[in-house]
């Protein structure tokens, strides 16, 4: 793709990777692209650790009774799996890594609004990770990632380490969201209005809103939990007159919106990849943009659906159930608009598109089973069973992680200026898709048959399905390792590519790969909108444009 002139150009002009050298230049960088890469490395390490924990949990469940670890270790390991995956990996994954790298470029800015704060957020993440993992050494926590009281108050001191770690991680998340919101408000280049932004930015915008408005509630919840443990304040402790259900309210007031922190950026990626690999303008730009905001707002009104069986009044369960169904509307708007985008498009099944299609299938299943769980009568039956585990993993792993992989494979050539081996990447994508379904589809069945979640032991009759799920986890692990190897190998050995290897319309493809330090050589040129494939290809692209 790259012409000779372009290649020469790239060798002569330094890009963000080559402009300075040495470890110190990375550790003290204020460049959003380098910080994005540092996040990417760190959250991937967290994903690896959390993934190994998941494999251990699945291995233990291959047979009833004790297989490879004691019940206490099992409880600690599934807790760590949840906490690492949620707080260390999935919340920062797309916004802090890909969002950091791409959002400023997409709005035509030279950097985020507060570059030093951006670096500070990264180090807060590191500090938070250290404290969270310190809980392993100091005795472990076995409450699950939800820290329900009074179980969490009865833990050893390690709960304080972990709580403090997550408190710090929360600030990292708040500052990232704040930084992004200000960047999009104040630093858009002339010529990029709100509705000229790529939909990825709209998704990051919705995410940032939730990060800013929900995370402080988690902070105060953790402070109260710590003060329960240290000063016996008693707010959550029934023995002192407190109310343990209040903890659940506080916790889910953050943690329900937080699942939209996890999924919204993934939805943003899908809007980019689905247009690029269908060669079509996005169908219904404004609907997709505003549905991100609608999800962010509705996310604050449905926390009670986690507590249908936690002594909520019948009236409030009905209200929360009703509101929960509303979330299906903006989610469905997105799904329908994406499929409509593909209609009559010129579809290219490259690796990012394979992950994108996986997202569409898996997120649809995850989203629809969410409607089952929002229905009161069904929820009472499947509450705290593997059905919930399967639903959650279909949304988070089948949704967010698939989108994250789609984004990585899509923007990798932009980040490093080199292309990975497409065949290996496709094999990886297929393995991930198959492995994922074998692992988690079985869990829907297990849950509907009544196998409770989080249990160490189970009845004989559940063994075949559990074994299948464990086999699936190995295929999934293999697929992920192959994909990671494929990407890492490309950093050094991949074929060099020019500015726009996919022939996409986004503004990020009009700057060299890798981009220069301040993102553009001179003022960014904006000859057409982010999805104007019909303009870029002079009407040659198939289909209509909405």
């Amino acid at each position, binding site marked *: 793709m790259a012409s000779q002139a372009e290649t020469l150009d790239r060798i002569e002009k330094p890009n963000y990777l080559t402009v300075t050298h040495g470890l110190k230049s990375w550790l003290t960088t204020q460049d959003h692209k380098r910080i994005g890469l540092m996040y990417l490395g760190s959250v991937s390490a967290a994903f690896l650790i959390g993934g190994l924990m998941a494999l251990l949990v699945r291995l233990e469940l291959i047979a009833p009774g004790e297989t490879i670890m004691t019940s206490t270790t099992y409880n600690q390991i599934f807790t760590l799996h949840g906490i690492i995956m949620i707080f260390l990996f999935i919340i920062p994954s797309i916004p802090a890594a890909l969002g950091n790298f791409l959002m400023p470029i997409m709005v035509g800015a030279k950097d985020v609004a507060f570059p030093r704060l951006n670096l500070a957020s990264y180090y807060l993440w590191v500090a938070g990770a250290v404290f969270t993992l310190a809980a392993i050494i100091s005795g472990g926590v076995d409450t699950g990632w939800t820290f329900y009281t009074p179980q969490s108050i009865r833990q050893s001191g390690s709960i304080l380490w972990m709580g403090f770690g997550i408190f710090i991680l929360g600030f990292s998340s708040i500052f990232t969201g704040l930084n992004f919101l200000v960047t999009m408000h104040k*630093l858009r280049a002339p010529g990029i209005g709100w509705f000229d932004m790529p939909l990825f930015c709209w998704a990051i915008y919705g995410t940032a809103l939730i990060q800013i408005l929900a995370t402080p509630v988690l902070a105060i919840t953790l402070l109260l939990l710590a003060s329960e443990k240290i000063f016996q304040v008693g707010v959550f402790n029934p023995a002192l007159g407190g109310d343990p259900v209040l903890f659940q309210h506080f916790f889910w007031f953050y943690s329900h919106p937080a699942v939209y922190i996890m999924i919204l950026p993934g939805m943003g990626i899908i809007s980019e990849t689905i247009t690029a690999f269908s060669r079509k303008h996005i169908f219904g730009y404004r609907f997709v943009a505003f549905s991100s905001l609608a999800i962010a707002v509705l996310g604050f009104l449905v926390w009670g659906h986690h507590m249908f069986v936690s002594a909520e009044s019948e009236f409030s369960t009905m209200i929360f159930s009703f509101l929960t169904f509303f979330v299906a509307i903006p989610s469905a708007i997105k799904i329908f608009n994406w499929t409509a985008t593909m209609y009559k498009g010129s579809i290219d099944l490259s690796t990012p598109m394979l992950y994108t299609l996986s997202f569409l299938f898996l997120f649809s299943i995850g989203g629809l089973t969410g409607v089952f769980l929002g229905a009161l009568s069904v929820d009472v039956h499947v509450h705290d069973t593997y059905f919930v585990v399967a639903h959650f993993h279909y949304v988070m792993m089948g949704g967010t992680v698939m989108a994250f992989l789609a984004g990585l494979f899509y923007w990798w050539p932009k980040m490093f200026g080199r292309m990975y081996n497409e065949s290996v990447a496709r094999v990886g994508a297929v393995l991930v898709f198959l492995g994922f379904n074998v692992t988690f589809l079985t869990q829907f069945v297990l849950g509907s048959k009544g196998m409770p979640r989080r249990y160490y032991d189970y009845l004989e009759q559940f063994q075949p399905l559990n074994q299948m799920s464990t086999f699936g986890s190995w295929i999934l692990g293999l697929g992920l390792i192959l994909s990671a190897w494929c990407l890492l190998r490309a950093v050094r050995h991949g074929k060099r590519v020019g500015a726009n290897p996919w022939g996409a319309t986004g503004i990020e493809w009009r700057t060299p790969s890798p981009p220069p330090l301040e993102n553009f050589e001179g003022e960014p040129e904006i000859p057409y909108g982010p999805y104007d494939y019909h303009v870029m290809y002079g009407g040659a692209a198939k289909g209509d444009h909405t």
Partner: protein
Amino acid sequence: MTEHSPEFKHHVGHHFTDAEQEFNANKFGFWLFLATEVLMFGGLFVAYAVFSNLYPEMWAAASGHLDRIMGGSNTVVLIVSSLTMALAVRASQTDNRKATIVFLVCTLALAATFMVIKYFEYSAKFEHGLLPGQWYTPHGPDTPAQGNLFFGLYFMTTGLHGIHVLAGMVAISWLLRKAVKGQFSSRWYTPVEIVGLYWHLVDLVWIYLFPLYYLV
């Protein structure tokens, strides 16, 4: 302008187009931060609402043990400090270096006064055993049996607020140092403006906190 050190000139960040864009970004960012503060304190106010509804009699009885005179004078102290802070912002905007310094010193002194009064208030509570959890060993007339919850929340909320006052004092001292060096002018007064916003929020939280805990 003669009052300003001539060599100091604020440099606009490389990624901003001009000083105005930078100022707007900083101010907007800080408003967002204040939103997070409101939500954090919001959690404590929710807990207050829940328990004051659950135990209305205990709540009223325990509330009677707070010192309204000390609380009331602290309210006055904070409101006046908000005024001096606002005057400091105004002074820095109008290139009045001397007035900026004077008003910042006043604000700092008032903040310290608040903390001193708080110290005496807390000591009195400690003496009477009005403490959270197992340390709740009240002695004295009309102390409710389950006041531990009230005092637990009281110490959490006023304590978190106190930490914010201390952080504000650090920030004001930092401003003072910059003001003495003559770094603020009508062209660049962003830090004064921002710390001012923060200080008003600290004041505002207390204005809700005082009637809820001391007067109900």
